[in-house]
């Protein structure tokens, strides 16, 4: 039993029925040595790598609040060309970091070794109280921030510290994204009430947006599971083989919407491009370059989409049926993978008045297909794909027409590579040699 082994072992050893009535005997008592070791381990955990993300964000906050990096911050804000509120950005990033770190937080604050405690007659509130001291230790930089803001109001500092700890504990304990978001909002809502600064409202708005996405996600799932308006549903008019395969992928993607999570980087990039193009700070070749870079941010979305298809189809990804030709399946996989990115690329193309985001979306999808068809185990690394993406992304100094021509050449080469790799994989499948996830 890792971590709190000694401490927990003693507690588990006490029979449930006996414990409330019997005094702590020598056999079942928590020895001072065990407590010391446990405290030391938890102290290490509180600043350990598992919660590094949260700690880092809090240290950034501390630095910003102390005015220690004012010049750096001003330079970064100026380079963004969007004139944002620095505090709003900082607090938004902290909320995002807290949410992103919910899994390592849960591992640190509610490790598997403690899960058995939930079966004890302690109850969830007692469990939370048990964890609270460690959580307070974990969020010490927040207390420092509060102290810097309100050095003469100890009650506010204490209440704020408690709110941050409670929110962090809530995030760590939440299995659902929405619940975690609500808990992450708690410190900022408290700060809104106490500090009355508009910057604190931004994380609350982000949380509100997260909660709003819930019915949106349900709507997306309904659409994915229902009959397609473009390719026909379960019944009705005759469907083409391509339509059938797309319907199959649509149904597969509808089983879980986790693949939509990497949607936020290109979406945030799109909003940023809207701002900088709108305020006139991005002119000339800048919009086209920004559009290509933001479309490239959709790489994660394409990887997640194809990964979700891999997960659901399993061994039958490339050959869902033996009568399906390789080219037909490649076409359907390509369309299914690129579709989530197309609306963003289209919007970027319209805003930047350049076709480059569209060609870039196709390039990104082909590159991901090429990597994943070759060796699925290497898909998360994406090294080869990123290498290929460098070509169109790193040529902003070329005239737009030349860039477009270069992108088309890259697209053609990638298409050839993907087709060859898929044919090789199909041959390997037919001979029983392919042991990857495509079989």
């Amino acid at each position, binding site marked *: 039993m890792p971590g709190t082994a000694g401490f927990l072992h003693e507690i588990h050893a006490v029979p449930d029925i006996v414990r409330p009535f019997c005094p702590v005997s020598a056999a079942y008592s928590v020895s001072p040595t065990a407590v010391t070791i446990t405290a030391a381990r938890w102290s290490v955990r509180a600043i350990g790598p598992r919660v590094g993300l949260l700690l880092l964000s809090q240290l950034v906050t501390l630095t910003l609040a102390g005015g220690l990096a004012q010049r750096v911050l001003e330079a970064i804000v100026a380079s963004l060309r969007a004139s944002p509120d620095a505090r709003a950005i900082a607090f938004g990033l902290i909320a995002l970091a807290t949410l992103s770190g919910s899994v390592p937080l849960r591992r640190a604050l509610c490790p598997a070794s403690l899960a058995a405690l939930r079966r004890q007659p302690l109850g969830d509130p007692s469990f939370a109280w048990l964890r609270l001291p460690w959580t307070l230790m974990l969020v010490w930089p927040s207390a420092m921030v509060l102290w810097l803001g309100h050095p003469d109001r100890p009650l506010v500092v204490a209440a704020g510290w408690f709110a941050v700890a409670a929110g962090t504990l809530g995030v760590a304990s939440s299995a659902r994204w929405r619940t975690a978001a609500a808990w992450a909002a708690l410190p900022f809502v408290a700060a809104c009430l106490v500090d009355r600064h508009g910057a604190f409202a931004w994380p609350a708005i982000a949380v509100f947006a997260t909660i709003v996405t819930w019915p949106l996600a349900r709507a997306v799932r309904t659409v994915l599971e229902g009959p397609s308006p473009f390719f026909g549903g*379960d*019944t009705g008019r*005759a*469907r*083409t*083989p391509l*339509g*059938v*395969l797309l*319907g*199959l992928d649509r*149904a*597969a993607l*509808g*089983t879980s919407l986790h693949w939509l999570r990497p949607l936020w980087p290109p979406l945030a990039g799109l909003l940023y491009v809207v701002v900088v193009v709108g305020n006139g700070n991005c002119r000339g070749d800048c919009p086209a370059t920004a559009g290509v870079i933001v479309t490239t941010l959709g790489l994660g979305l394409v990887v997640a989409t194809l990964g979700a298809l891999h997960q*659901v*189809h399993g061994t*039958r990804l490339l050959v*869902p*049926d*033996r*009568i*399906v*030709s390789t080219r037909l399946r490649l076409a359907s996989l390509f369309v299914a993978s690129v579709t989530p990115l197309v609306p963003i690329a289209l919007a970027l193309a319209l805003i930047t008045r350049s076709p480059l985001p569209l060609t870039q979306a196709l390039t990104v999808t082909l590159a991901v297909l090429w990597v994943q068809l070759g060796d699925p185990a290497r898909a998360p690394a994406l090294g080869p794909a990123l290498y290929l993406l460098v070509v169109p992304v790193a040529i902003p100094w070329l005239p737009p027409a030349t860039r477009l021509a270069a992108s088309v050449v890259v697209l053609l080469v990638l298409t050839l590579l993907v087709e060859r790799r898929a044919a090789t994989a199909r*041959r390997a499948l*037919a*001979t*029983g*040699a392919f042991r990857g996830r495509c079989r």
Partner: protein
Amino acid sequence: MSGVLVTEGVAFRYPGGPAFALPDLALGPGLHRLGGANGSGKSTLLRVLAGDLAPTRGTIRVAGRDPVRDVAARVLIGHAPYPDDLPDFLTIGRALSDLAALRRRPERHDEALADALALPLDLRLARASAGQRRKAGLLAALVGEPPVLLLDEPWTALDAAAIVLVTAYLESLRTTHVVLFTTHGDCPLAVDSTHVAQAASGR
């Protein structure tokens, strides 16, 4: 040799595994049993005949066409592997209609048989029992009315009523279809021919 399903010197070998050899066949309409001990390669050889695996050597012809190289010729073969390979996330009806559309045979003839087998078409395959999945797999092999049926353990996991029904249905195909099946238990059908799959390790 003449017949709807003709094979010559067909063998298959997984990389690093044993080789499986199939006796030469020239099958016309009728009920044919592929026999052999556990691990002798019966299921693998059915997959080879269906075009799912490419034979290491030998030739296969279905109505004069090569299902190994000609993907379209595989429409002539209905294959019911065991366990089935239908997608878990679809309903049985959706899986069958998808297969029909892929074979460009949108008209369905399996509703009556599904009713007789008491198979709910709106049941998601992930929630289907082993017997229901077996029935769905058999119906999937019949999609598009292929002249050649390759059935791997068609009676496995079926209840008594379904065994009787499937047996009667296969009997009705005796004069019109080539039905090649494997079975481990007692065969409830009088077969026209029995072929033994041979395992030939080390070749």
